[in-house]
């Protein structure tokens, strides 16, 4: 008789937001073997970027790679193309991009937190965080004109300017959000049933994180101080005094905590950016065509997002290579799932915040 149970999760499952397939070999609900398959939403974006769309339009195409980190993709692409074309971006545009990026991070982190709560069987907390997330969605709508697909960044600058009225709205709503996040943080810290579900579950040690080159909040929760906002000057983070957050635990609880602290940090960054917002143009004139190779990466809510662009003076690019954060963290996810209890699997998967339409493109 077979001793192990084979449990499939996906490609359609209640606890998954997007199609991915895991198959577990379990021994009495303890997982001993994991296999993952992530290629369910392949859309051929990379090919489309080089054959169907001109380089000025590609920014809007790559924004459609993912709904949650749309602005990250378009920012990364735009920065890369600006480097190839040698465009100097106005400072005000840089600041506005930073604010949009951080707003995006806030809403993505809140979504992830709510999803982790829901997958731990706590639907009320899910509803509560989603309700609070509405605040930041409204801010995004007021600032960029859209709730998720912003189309805010364009080559040379940004599409929409900011005025003092809008600034007031942002400050007001973010102040409210700060309070709410503080309450939620207390809940995540103190709730007894959540601690049963989160603490010492799905642990990734520091060595494991280094070995499988993990990124983003997951690596930072394992004590690896790796944050592209520190390691790169793509947006004026160092001017605003950005500090990355690291925790030592490596379990679901510390991943949640890293996300919650990053929410505070993002709110602070936005407020500082609003304080020191420079005056001036919001977009530079765009002339010429791109040439050469560029390696560009930005910090997406889930980790590092990497773009490789190659162009040779044409309207169409030669090669667009996209590396998304979730793709790099799948091996880490497999490591974390091994040896854990099947009952914890949805929470562990959610705590990695997988974004599969990013992953397969």
């Amino acid at each position, binding site marked *: 008789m077979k001793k192990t149970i084979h449990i499939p999760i996906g490609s359609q499952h209640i606890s998954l937001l997007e199609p991915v397939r895991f198959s577990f070999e379990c021994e009495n609900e303890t997982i001993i073997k994991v296999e993952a398959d992530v290629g369910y939403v392949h859309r051929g974006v990379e090919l489309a970027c080089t054959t169907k*769309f001109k380089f*000025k*339009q590609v920014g*809007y*195409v790559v924004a*459609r790679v993912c709904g949650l980190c749309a602005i990250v993709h378009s920012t990364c692409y735009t920065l890369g193309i600006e480097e190839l074309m040698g465009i100097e971006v106005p400072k005000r545009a840089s600041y506005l991009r930073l604010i949009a990026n951080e707003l995006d991070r806030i809403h993505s982190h809140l979504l992830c937190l709510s999803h982790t709560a829901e997958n731990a069987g706590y639907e*009320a*907390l899910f509803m*509560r965080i989603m*309700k609070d997330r*509405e605040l930041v969605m*409204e801010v995004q*709508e*007021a*600032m960029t*004109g*859209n709730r998720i*697909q912003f*189309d805010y960044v*364009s080559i040379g600058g940004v*599409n*929409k300017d900011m005025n003092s009225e*809008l600034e007031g709205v942002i400050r007001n709503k973010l102040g409210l959000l700060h309070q709410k996040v503080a309450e939620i943080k*207390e*809940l995540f810290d*103190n*709730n*007894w*049933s959540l601690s049963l579900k989160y603490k010492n579950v799905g642990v990734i040690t520091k060595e494991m994180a280094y070995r499988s080159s993990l990124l983003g909040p997951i690596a930072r929760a394992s004590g690896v101080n790796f944050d592209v906002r520190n390691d790169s000057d793509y947006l004026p983070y160092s001017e605003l005094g950005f500090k990355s957050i690291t925790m030592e635990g490596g379990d679901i609880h510390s991943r949640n905590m890293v996300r919650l602290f990053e929410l505070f940090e993002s709110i602070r960054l936005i407020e500082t950016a609003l304080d020191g917002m420079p005056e001036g143009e919001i977009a530079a004139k765009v002339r010429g065509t791109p040439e050469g190779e560029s390696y560009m990466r930005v910090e997406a809510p889930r980790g590092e997002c990497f773009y490789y662009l190659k162009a040779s003076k044409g309207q169409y690019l030669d090669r667009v290579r996209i590396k998304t954060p979730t793709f790099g963290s799948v091996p880490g996810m497999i490591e974390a799932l091994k040896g854990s209890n099947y009952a914890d699997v949805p929470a562990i998967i959610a705590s990695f915040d997988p974004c599969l339409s990013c992953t397969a493109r």
Partner: protein
Amino acid sequence: MLKAAFNALKNLFSTPATIDYPFEKSPKNKEARGLILFEEPKCIWCLKCEDVCPPGAIRFTQDRESFDYTYHYNPYLCIYCSECVRACPDSAVALSQCNELSPPTDDKNMNDNWFKIEKEAEESKIAVKELKKIKKEESS
């Protein structure tokens, strides 16, 4: 845990955050991006918007006799990126964005005939170019 329970109790007596969606309209910001509006008298027919539109939702077809352009806009294809509004030259300002999203229409041009319009847009321009060439040769 007690705090969460208290919060649940508090929610019981506060107004809900959700709305009866199909019966009530969802709130929309006045800055929200919506449909592209086109004012024909202002247009200088530079075709920059057609060139720049990422999904190709704006197409111009050209008449083979009078060489006049006709504006076609597919709200279903439009991604509301406002790239065309930015591309519209300062002397024209024929395009603008309002905050109404695309309402469902019965316009056959939008769904079934759109491919025909796309094809016509390309073919008519080539045809007109050739017609013009022939005319030039005739006149010279």
